[in-house]
């Protein structure tokens, strides 16, 4: 297992993906001057920009690494040599997942550190009206990473049954978009106006989808970080448990499908 994780991380670094991220991180240097355009909330805007850049980079990584790693291995016939080793397909899949997850965490740590420095600079130039909640910023970045690790699991599940990378990539993008709005749709369907306007069948179908699709909006804590609103600890705990259980289910289904897959 650890050798697979090691190989995955090494492979990602060999593909110069981290250098690409570092090049993108140059964008952070522009944040203080871009944020100074704000009228009343320069620090808040620099936090918004920093967190959005991190979130966007992690999204790209999750989708492309999650969707292409297994597919690439099968396409290049690496899997034959790897799977001839004394390890199960499940170990291979979980190892790959853990490697990518670890890489996402490393990236989040790196970008998070840069973001904190940028926010510190912005807040020194234009002191915010409310004191910054540093712990909320850290927790937000960690939960962002968790969200995208969950998305990696979605992409890898789709990759186990797919013969090309289209299904995992577009499937993961769709899961991401759907996952961020399920809560809004669910809240709307609970409202009295929706009770009248939407038929019971559609409501039930939407409700079923709500429980089936990943609920990614619970991982989004940006408002708390930007406007220094205290976090709800029990809510965070439930989200972490939700993450563990949901990712576990995805990986388990992925492993079952991968075990049964015919590889020629």
């Amino acid at each position, binding site marked *: 297992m650890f050798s697979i994780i090691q190989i995955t991380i090494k492979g990602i670094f060999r593909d110069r993906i981290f250098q690409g991220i570092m090049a993108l991180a140059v964008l952070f240097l522009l944040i203080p001057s871009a944020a*100074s355009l704000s009228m*009343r*909330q320069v620090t808040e*805007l620099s936090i*918004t920009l920093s967190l*959005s850049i991190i979130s966007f980079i992690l999204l790209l990584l999750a989708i492309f690494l999650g969707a292409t790693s297994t597919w690439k291995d099968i396409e290049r016939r690496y899997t034959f040599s790897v799977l001839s080793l004394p390890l199960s397909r499940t170990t291979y899949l979980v190892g790959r997942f853990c490697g990518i997850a670890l890489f996402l965490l490393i990236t989040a740590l790196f970008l998070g550190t840069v973001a904190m420095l940028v926010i510190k600079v912005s807040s020194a130039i234009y002191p915010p009206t*409310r004191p910054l909640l540093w712990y909320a910023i850290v927790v937000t970045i960690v939960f962002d990473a968790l969200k995208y690790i969950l998305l990696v699991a979605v992409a890898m599940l789709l990759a186990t049954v797919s013969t090309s990378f289209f299904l995992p990539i577009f499937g993961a993008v769709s899961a*991401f978009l759907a996952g961020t709005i399920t809560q809004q749709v669910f809240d709307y369907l609970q409202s009295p106006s929706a009770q009248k306007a939407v038929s019971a069948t559609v409501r039930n179908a939407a409700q079923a989808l709500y429980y089936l699709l990943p609920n990614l909006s619970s991982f989004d804590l940006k408002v708390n970080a930007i*406007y220094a609103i205290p976090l709800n600890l029990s809510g965070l705990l439930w989200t972490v448990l939700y993450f563990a259980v949901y990712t576990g289910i995805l990986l388990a289904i992925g492993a079952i499908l991968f075990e049964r897959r015919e590889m020629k």
Partner: protein
Amino acid sequence: MSTLQRPLLVLLVCMIGYGVVLGPFTAYMKQKPVEEKLGYVPNVNLLRYVSADHKELVGAALLMKVLMYFGGLMDKQASNVVVEKPDFRGMSNIIHSALKLDPYNMDGYYFAQSFLVWDVKQYDIANKLLDYGMKYRTWDWYLPFFAGFNHSYFLKDYKKAAEYYKRAGELSGNELFFSLAGRYMQESGQTELAIAYLLILEKGAKNQAVKKYYQTRLTALKEVRRIEVARDNYRQTKGAAPITVEQLLQGGFLSPAPVDPYGGQFYLEPDGKVSTTSKFAFAGANTESKQKAGQSR
């Protein structure tokens, strides 16, 4: 080598052509009339779904778009270029959308307050927006302070104004607001109240276009205050109220002559209130100045 000759020749010809075209092209682009446009923004319900987990970013981007548009117009006004009146309705719509995406964004409330009440006199929309903001920004004294000002200065609802000022006082711990709740509630103190209000806003404005906007308004109100003081002195000395600003100038009560930064002319209304033909707006000065100035004389 011969295979490269043709593309090299084409490249050379094109490079020379580029050099020839570049000069006139740049000159043309420099003098090309630029249209300041606010543009189209999709429905907020669609934006809410499409922006995924970047709602705060999209909200900030929408506000920036409005600010850039407004800043561009202000720059042109400052350089005496005739411009159309800003599309205040469009600006208000975009700000409302942005605040639906991120109800915590202070820039939206701050900017909406500046033009909704002064320029388009939509006090109800402005106050509803402030009430909406107060539900989220529960710690912020600016919002009740704005609402208090709107209620006292524009709507003359002093009871409601006092409630908001009290709330602003409780949140900020600043005694000024408690005194505002009672002190400036008469008609005579209204200009002073507006000057105090604008001074606070002007001091906190980081954006140059917005700062300029407040400075101009502040200059105009200070001139109004000067005329008011002269008017009161005239009434005390002569026992009768003046009818025109010229009377104050001739009687030595007002010196130097007041200048309206919006380009209009000050005059006294029949009830003694100081007004200006520009209606405290750049666009108003051009259209109505001559006509109204004639009337006041």
